[in-house]
């Protein structure tokens, strides 16, 4: 039925059970009643009376009396039921309904509450009317009953609250109040309002807790002292009975202890929670309860025998767990381990401490004191409860059994521990599981079975290491060390010991003791001498840096290499190490070229110091190995309008960062260190490693060439080896073997010919040892002298460019060979010395081609076609040197440069001729020139050369030139060609004194046809009638060509024609004004036939017009030899075609003459072109050699006055 309650509480469907009892006056509640359920709620009066008379006579009185009784007990809950029978009714059909019994009763008793009277018709008949009346009755009954109940409940709650408010009064007792509120809870429970019932208990719980806390704060209530009595019984929670009457009575009698009260309270809460289907809350509350009980006992200063609480907690945990198991199925339990595991681990913990307390964990078993304690504890348990007596696995039995013997304890403890670990693991609480495992390991250690403990310790250690918890790591390692020691795992024990000895979290004494463990083991003699114990080095010490000497870590065969390592010892005390060794891996490098010192030095970072990253510190922080974030900005723009679409930051090395972390296996996995056996080992014996940095130096003599890679570092202490398995970054040194080598190179940038130059000889001895008497044999070349000085010294350097010694050098020269005797030098050294060499200028007309080449200028063609270049002419000298270490001779090429470039030119003045020689200094040195001389070679006795220049010494600075001029005079006409040989002595201006006499510099040249054949005179005369030339006015130009000589050898060429009386030759003249001062009017060029005889003159008139005013130079007049196209074809030509072609061809020539000087090639070009013109041959022009034509009017000027008509005066300022 629906139950509506006051204070806005939600209506609930409740089930209210009622008992019907016969009315007795004694049952009516007295004044001040505290009970809630044990008195009648609703009083019902039943009557069958249907006769008015009878009613009036007896029933009415009876009813009145009943009502009075009720009133006197202030009970207002009553109901009168009138049962009507049809049979009786028929007899009284005449009776009006109004005057029926019911009405009478209503009138009499229910003056206001007419509903308090109900008619029940024919209750035993099966008719609709009967049914209806039953229904009406029952509804009424229910409503009234509920009304009564609510009223009473409300009254009860009010009373209870009043009682609670009185709690500060001195006489207030918690137990009494407890009973009252529990009554309420019972009622709710009865109504199946478990929630409400639970609230009542929770309120009691909170009230009590608050009092305890207040007590702790000094505000003690009197009644609480009652709970402070010593604990005498610790038989755990009892949860199997809905109500633990035994405890309840204790509370009622105010004799309960704190544990009793708590137990009872919790058992009630548990029951209700289980009714509410919340078993997990039970587990959770149980844990809280147990914790708080322990604290409360402490807070209240209750004296508890040692172990008693442990017993109580243990029993309670198991009881709760069993109770929960009892009401849930397996699946539910499995999926809610998280809630119960706390209880399991708590029980485990408590059982463990009980075991330790009762001496059940020690190896020897409990002693008498322990046994006494056990007996006391068992006594405190009391007898087993009857309700669990039949269960085999009851907590009571378990505890009793566990405490009874060492074996039983072990069994139970292991069961519990394993169960707990399994549960923790299954819900992923690995760390908690490891922690329980550690406890278990401790137990095993106590039980002297370290092999079982080891697994747990290792597991825990791995976990702590992976997560970087330094203190737990240290602690667990300490346990592990103990365990390994017992197990006799020498290797592991020593390793752990070394780790502990270097652990900064331990005290100095502990560290030292672990260190001594290692040392004492190392000092012990082992049975099998070959057996070695290999341990990783990182715990013992760590390699900080490594330094090679020589720093480039390259050493020649037989050389000494030293490796200096800095090792930081992490041991607390100095450790005497028998031997420290570096194992080296040797590999032969195939490429021999790379094996030279130079190459290796170049390709190796200098300094020789290799630093190693500090290894993971004793407290490793695994994150430090993670690479740093590499972030970059990212902009994405839309392709169409370049607006920014997205922007962000990209992590470039996500793959590195988000990689799954390996589960710390690598940290301790280095146990399996293999000791490499190699033939190449660097050793250092008897080293004492002080705590902190130590420097150890290894020395080795290099034997085989190749690359040596440092692989392992190994420190041996007797049979114990600490090994660093990999030296990283890789370090290597190289041993090379080198062939002896000779190098010759100039000291300066380039060698200059003609003056002494220094050349450096470098002998790299390589593997060859230079003995006394070894010498270099240089084959002499005539053109190059090796200048020997007495004070030649050689310097011997060691491989590292350190000066080793200094020795005199003996140089002996013979005709063919120059022998340089080398000073004795060990292998892999360098001998350096300098020699002066002198490249001779060419000896004239002698020596092989190679020797001559370049020392003199090549024979110049008379036509100076040398391209102007500023680079010096060079010459190579090849010297072959025989070295003592080789049967083959070494050929060395030395390149010398000529410091000068010489040009010559022919100058004419009428018929007088001059030769000018220009010597240009191309080098960077300054030179003194002296003794210049020009001689005509050969049969030129007719020629005489008169020097016009100063005879004294001349000074030529760098990049400057000196000029020499001679006048040519001849005795015979025409003079023969001149084969001139110019020579000049030179010496560097800087050096005052030269040890050798230098050969002069020579230059040969030839000048042909320098005799003047024609002289050309040009004259400009003003127009007739005018005094001066005027601009714009035509003037006449008269060109006179005069032949100065008779027929000579040089004239005999194709142009020469022979007529009857005289020879004539054809010349072409051309008037060109390159400076555009003159305008040539009419034909500017023409061909003249010139008689070949002295003083033959040809005049040509031309009109020219000056374009500017002023003194104008005359236009150039050029003469060419006009050669017929070919003598062989001349007969085939007719005159017309000749002339026609002539004009055409000459015009062309004139045009092209301006930008071309190579007439000959031009002519040949024409002949090629003209072959199209019906194959007609073209005449050729040949320039006359410069000496043959003398222009008399070269340089003359004519005055031109400006025209008076000109309105514009042009003034040109140049």
């Amino acid at each position: 039925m629906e139950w509506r309650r006051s204070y806005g509480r939600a209506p609930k469907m409740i089930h209210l059970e009622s008992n019907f009892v016969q009315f007795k006056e004694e049952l009516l509640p007295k004044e001040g009643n505290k009970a809630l359920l044990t008195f009648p709620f609703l009083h019902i009066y039943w009557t069958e009376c249907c006769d008015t008379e009878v009613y009036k006579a007896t029933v009415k009185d009876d009813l009145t009396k009943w009502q009075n009784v009720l009133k006197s007990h202030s009970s207002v809950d009553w109901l009168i039921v009138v049962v009507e029978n049809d049979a009786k009714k028929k007899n009284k059909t005449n009776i009006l309904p109004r005057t029926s019994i019911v009405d009478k009763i209503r009138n009499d008793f229910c003056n206001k509450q007419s509903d308090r009277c109900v008619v029940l018709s024919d209750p035993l008949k099966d008719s609709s009317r009967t049914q209806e009346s039953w229904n009406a009755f029952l509804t009424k009954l229910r409503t009234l009953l509920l009304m009564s109940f609510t009223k009473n409940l409300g009254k009860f709650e009010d009373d209870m609250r009043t009682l609670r408010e009185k709690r500060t009064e001195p006489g207030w007792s918690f137990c009494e109040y407890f009973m009252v509120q529990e009554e309420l809870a019972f009622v709710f429970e009865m109504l199946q309002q478990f929630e409400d019932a639970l609230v009542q208990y929770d309120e009691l719980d909170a009230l009590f807790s608050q009092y305890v806390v207040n007590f702790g704060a000094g505000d003690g209530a009197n009644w609480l002292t009652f709970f402070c009595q010593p604990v005498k019984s610790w038989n755990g929670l009892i949860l199997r009975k809905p109500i633990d009457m035994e405890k309840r009575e204790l509370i009622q009698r105010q004799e309960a202890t704190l544990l009793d009260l708590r137990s009872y309270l919790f058992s009630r809460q548990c029951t209700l929670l289980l009714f509410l289907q919340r078993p997990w809350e039970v587990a959770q509350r149980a844990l809280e309860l147990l914790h708080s009980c322990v604290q409360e006992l402490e807070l209240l200063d209750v004296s508890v025998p040692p172990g008693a609480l442990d017993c109580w907690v243990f029993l309670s945990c198991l009881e709760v767990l069993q109770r929960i198991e009892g009401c849930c199925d397996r699946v539910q339990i499995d999926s809610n381990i998280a809630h119960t595991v706390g209880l399991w681990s708590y029980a485990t913990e408590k059982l463990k401490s009980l075991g330790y307390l009762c001496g059940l964990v020690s190896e020897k078993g409990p002693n008498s004191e322990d046994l006494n304690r056990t007996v006391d504890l068992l006594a405190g348990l009391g007898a087993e409860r009857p309700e669990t007596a039949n269960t085999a696995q009851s907590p009571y039995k378990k505890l009793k059994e566990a405490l009874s013997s060492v074996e039983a304890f072990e069994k139970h403890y292991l069961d519990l521990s394993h169960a707990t670990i399994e549960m923790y693991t299954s819900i992923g609480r690995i760390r908690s599981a490891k922690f329980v495992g550690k406890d278990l390991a401790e137990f095993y250690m106590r039980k002297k079975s370290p092999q079982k403990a080891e697994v747990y310790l290792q597991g825990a250690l791995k976990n702590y290491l992976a997560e970087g918890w330094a203190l737990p790591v240290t602690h667990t390692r300490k346990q592990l060390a103990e365990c390994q020691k017992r197990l006799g795992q020498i290797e592991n024990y020593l390793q752990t010991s070394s780790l502990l000895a270097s652990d900064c979290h331990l005290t100095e004494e502990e560290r030292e003791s672990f260190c001594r463990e290692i040392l004492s083991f190392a000092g012990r003699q082992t049975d099998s001498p070959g057996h070695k114990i290999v341990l990783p080095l990182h715990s013992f010490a760590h390699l900080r840096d490594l330094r090679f000497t020589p720093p480039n870590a390259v050493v020649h065969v037989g050389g000494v290499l030293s490796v200096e390592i800095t090792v930081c010892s992490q041991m607390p005390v100095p450790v005497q190490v028998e031997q420290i060794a570096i194992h080296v891996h040797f590999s032969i490098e195939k490429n021999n070229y790379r094996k030279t010192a130079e190459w290796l030095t170049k390709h190796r970072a200098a300094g020789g110091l290799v630093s190693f990253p500090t290894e993971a510190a004793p407290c490793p922080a695994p994150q430090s190995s993670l690479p740093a974030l590499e972030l970059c900005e990212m902009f994405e723009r839309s392709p169409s309008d370049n607006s920014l679409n997205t922007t962000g930051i990209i992590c470039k090395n996500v793959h590195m960062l988000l990689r799954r972390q390996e589960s710390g296996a690598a940290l301790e996995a280095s146990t399996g260190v293999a000791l490499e056996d190699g033939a190449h080992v660097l050793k250092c014996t008897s080293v004492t490693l002080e705590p902190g940095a130590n420097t150890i130096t290894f020395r080795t003599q290099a034997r085989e060439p190749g690359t040596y890679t440092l692989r392992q570092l190994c420190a041996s202490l007797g049979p114990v080896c600490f090994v660093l398995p990999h030296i990283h970054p890789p370090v290597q040194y190289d041993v090379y073997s080198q062939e002896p080598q000779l190098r010759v190179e100039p000291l300066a940038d380039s060698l200059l010919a003609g003056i002494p130059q220094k050349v450096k000889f470098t002998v790299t001895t390589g593997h060859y040892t230079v003995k006394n008497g070894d010498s270099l044999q240089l084959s002499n070349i005539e053109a190059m002298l090796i200048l020997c000085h007495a004070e030649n010294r050689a310097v011997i350097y060691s491989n590292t460019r350190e000066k080793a010694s200094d020795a005199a050098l003996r140089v002996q020269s013979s005709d063919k060979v120059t022998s340089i005797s080398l000073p004795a030098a060990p292998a892999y050294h360098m001998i350096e010395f300098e020699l002066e060499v002198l490249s001779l200028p060419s000896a004239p007309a002698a020596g092989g081609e190679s020797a001559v080449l370049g020392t003199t200028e090549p024979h110049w063609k008379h036509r100076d076609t040398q391209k102007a270049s500023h680079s010096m002419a060079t010459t190579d000298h090849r010297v072959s040197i025989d070295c003592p270490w080789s049967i083959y001779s070494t050929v060395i090429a030395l390149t010398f440069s000529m410091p000068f470039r010489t040009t010559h030119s022919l100058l004419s003045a009428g018929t007088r001729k001059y030769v000018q020689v220009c010597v240009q200094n191309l080098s960077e040195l300054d030179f003194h020139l002296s003794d210049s001389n020009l001689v005509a070679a050969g049969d030129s006795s007719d020629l005489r050369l008169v020097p016009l220049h100063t005879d004294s010494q001349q000074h030529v600075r760098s990049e400057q030139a000196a000029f020499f001029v001679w006048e040519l005079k001849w005795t015979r006409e025409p003079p023969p060609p001149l084969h001139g040989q110019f020579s000049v002595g030179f010496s560097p201006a800087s050096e005052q004194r030269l040890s050798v006499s230098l050969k002069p510099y020579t230059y040969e040249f030839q000048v042909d046809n320098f005799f003047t054949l024609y002289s050309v005179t040009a004259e400009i005369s003003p127009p007739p009638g005018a005094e001066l030339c005027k601009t714009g006015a035509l003037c006449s130009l008269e060109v006179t060509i005069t032949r100065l000589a008779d027929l000579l050898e040089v004239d005999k060429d194709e142009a020469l024609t022979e007529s009857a009386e005289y020879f004539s030759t054809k010349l072409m003249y051309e008037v060109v004004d390159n400076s555009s001062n003159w305008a040539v009017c009419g034909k500017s060029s023409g061909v003249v036939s010139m008689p070949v005889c002295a003083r033959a003159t040809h005049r040509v008139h031309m009109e020219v017009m000056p374009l500017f005013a002023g003194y104008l130079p005359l236009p150039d007049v050029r003469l060419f030899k006009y050669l017929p196209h070919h003598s062989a074809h001349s007969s085939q030509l007719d005159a017309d075609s000749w002339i026609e072609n002539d004009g055409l061809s000459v015009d062309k020539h004139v045009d092209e003459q301006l930008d071309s000087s190579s007439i000959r090639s031009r002519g040949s070009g024409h002949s090629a072109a003209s072959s199209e013109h019906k194959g007609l041959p073209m005449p050729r022009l040949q320039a006359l050699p410069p000496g043959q034509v003398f222009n008399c009017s070269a340089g003359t000027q004519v005055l031109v006055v400006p025209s008076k008509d000109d309105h514009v005066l042009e003034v040109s300022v140049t």
Partner: protein
Amino acid sequence: MAVPLPGDKTVVAQNYPLYIRSVPTESELKFHYMVHTSLDVVDEKISAMGKALVDQRELYLGLLYPTEDYKVYGYVTNSKVKFVMVVDSSNTALRDNEIRSMFRKLHNSYTDVMCNPFYNPGDRIQSRAFDSMVTSMMVQVC
């Protein structure tokens, strides 16, 4: 009144300690073990809350678990840095609100540490300011 022993520490997502501090120092090892074990519960709570928590921004995890003598409270920042605080069970003055405000203070101070450009996230915290803040908090609690 018993002297409360708050062990106090900061832990990062990878579960290695960034900062650990406890008074008195004798039982430091015990606290280390306790805090380490409590990480199980922190992990469990974080994964149980899943994404719902992120929206609510509720960083305080509440009581992780009680032990006989201590209460262990947890707090996790948005970047999954975990704070664990262990206080003596008998210290009844510390209610949820006090613990919560202590965590908030701790978080603020931690944020300051992170703002230090010379601090490398993930390194052990050696900031003096943080240290003194923790000290003052511990003194206050005692």
